[in-house]
């Protein structure tokens, strides 16, 4: 759970997420990409999962039991510095809502790859 705790470095204002049971520990970005397909499958199975991922990827990954290490999260942020300005308010609202959403996302990948 160490990696999840460190999310406060990314979004110091948002407080702790409510993680699910960790079934996957991710120690690096490469590790994440290696498991990308199964993570995406898990997200797709989660109600409004892709939408929740778009609102707050780190909260969603923790929710579905993907435990990111500090290193992996830092790598993600280094590669995609635009992942900022996140809030759990809309995330929680969407989680609470049982309504059919008018906008439904589908994920083709998780994060931007390293440039080769």
């Amino acid at each position, binding site marked *: 759970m160490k990696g999840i705790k460190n999310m406060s470095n990314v*979004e*110091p*204002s*948002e407080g702790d997420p409510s993680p699910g049971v960790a079934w996957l520990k991710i120690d690096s970005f490469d590790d994440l990409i290696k498991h990308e397909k199964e993570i995406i499958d898990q997200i797709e199975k989660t109600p409004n999962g892709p*939408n929740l991922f*778009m*609102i*707050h990827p780190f909260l969603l990954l923790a929710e579905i039991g993907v435990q990111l290490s500090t290193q992996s999260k830092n790598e993600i942020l280094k590669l995609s*510095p*635009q*992942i*900022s*300005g*996140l*809030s*759990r*308010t*809309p995330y*929680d*609202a*969407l989680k*609470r*809502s*049982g*309504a*059919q*959403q*008018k*906008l439904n996302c589908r994920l083709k990948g998780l994060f931007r790859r390293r440039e080769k």
Partner: protein
Amino acid sequence: MTLLAGFDLVSEFSHDTILYLIRSHLKVGGVLANPPFEITIPVSGSGGSGSAHLVVTGIHLDLNADDTATLTFDFRTGSVQFSSPQALSVCPLNGTIAVHASISLHPGSHHTQSIAFLITRADIAFSTAADHAISSSLSGKPVTPAQFKTLANQAITTFAVGSSPSSVQTVPVTFTVVPNEDGSLVPSLVFERLEVHCIANPSRNKQALALFGILLKANKAHGDHTHKTSSSIKAANDGMCISMSPEAFDALVLCPMLAKKLNTTVAKLPTACGSAPGIDTNGVTVTRIVDTFGDGHIDIRGTATKSGFCYEAHATFHGTLKFSVSDGTLVPHLVMDEPDVSVALDWYCWFIAGVIGPAELAIAGGLNAVGQSIAEGLAGDAINQLLGSGLPGVGTSGLGAGEVKTAEITPDGLTLQGTISSPVLPTNYNADKELGLSGSVTTTNKAVIGSGVFHTKIWCMANAKDYPYTEYSQSQEGTYSLTSQFVQLPLSPSFTLQPDDGPEIPLTGTSGTLEIAGVQSHYPMPLATGGSMVVQTVHIDYQINGTTIRLRNRPEEGVYAVWLNATATGCNGQALLDDNGKPLNPFAQVQFEGNHADIGGGYEADVQYCAAQMEAWIRQKSDQYAIWQKTPVWVEVNYPSPEELVRYVSDLVSLGLPEVDDVLRAIKTAHGNSFFRAILSPAARQPSLLTGGTAVRPPAAQKRLAR
């Protein structure tokens, strides 16, 4: 009956003109006496207390012989609500209210006097149907019908008369009065004395208000208005007339004009204007010139002399002066008869043949020149100078333009008949029954719930930047009141809330919480995507107090809008309908912003800079190639109207450029909740604001637009 009743100048205003003045300027109980209007007044006295509401629909004026005006107002859909000795309603009520006012001239500054009204009394009269309603409503109640009518009359009098003594109200029709000095017609109208009196008549269209004026100091003791018993106005309803006595015509029109034409003063003119033995002009000496008013014309008579080497000629002359009116201008026509000339010759002149003929010709020519001067002088002088100011004889800022139609001459004087085209009254004539919802949403609590750094590259910038941001939770309260016009009070409202494309949900009881499913909420976060959208069930707490409703949001439910609808019943418990029999059904869009983000570090300025760059580029391209018909004009981040923002976004989208997505995202983030306000607003559903007809209007919105 006489035309002027011994006065020098009488100005008469028709009944309808005075009614126009009253409707434009007179207030009864603080309300402009220009129906339709409605009043709510307290009812209090022995027997009970409460309030009355009346819808006033009509006004009638009577100008009475005792120099008072009676304003009779028609009212309908009235009701009286008693709070003591017990709560009870008396309705429906209709009838009339008679307001009595004295008319006088009220002194102002700089010797001015204005027509003034002083309300002295008011009486209410109920229709037969209202009498039945009163008897029926009060049957078995502690207030008797007789007590009710006494209370109603007291209430109306208190309302109309106000505090004792009530204050005089002037209307902007002013005159200048300088006592003990000769007055004037030009350059400004100045009276020595002025009186205002009504000219009464059983037929309202023959009633008039007349201003009786003395212009000449010598006449200060003259005049008795009671001798004028009927109006001289001939126009049907918009008439006015000015009558001038022959003496005033001489003193203020003819004599000054002659003096001017003959380059002298009035005193240096011969009789009847001055006292000089004669004045030389055009080769003759005019020794007397007088005018007499006849039927349809003015006789100009005079004498003149001409003397030569051995002769002296005496002539008497006569001219007939008439007036016609052309385009509001008085045109004089003076026809000079051939003068009668007698020539006295010295004895030796008998030997000078032919002297008589030239003398006669000289006199005739000279006198014709005098007549020509009179005609020209009258055409360009006093009367027409007055006509040039609009309405002769009156300072009339409160009236429309007057136009002289005819000029009449009688032995009593000269009368100019005209009309006044009064402008449209300054109130609306829309007497439609209406209900409305008036109110707004305010933030009652705002708390910081997050902050951080937003790292982004705005589309035209070379590099990404860090922008600090703060996220807020906002508790908001919308307070709306049901307003009404021309409907029976008191209102008993019913409210519903409705999502944009869902059913109306009634608000029951006086408070509670309403759950509305399927509401589309927006959140400004995440900033990188321009926010997020969630369809969810929202909760709105409500509290109803009389005709006011308070609605409170749950901040965590974000930014969304719902429709607040209302209907109402009136005094008799029946639904309030419009004039076509359809229920009055006002509505308002209530927008809550429970979630809000502020982005600092110059983010807005950077977006604005890029937008300006893009605008300039598009303009350049459009000028060169006429590619795009519309150039999106940047809307500043400062609470823009939804219409502006919707139009901007619409124009932007229609460009079809690949960069538009980036631009839209940045704009959405920069405008924050203003953007959501715009897309939630009815403006976003107006086809005229969206290009290509891409707007999809939800059924509920279509219904509203169709109303």
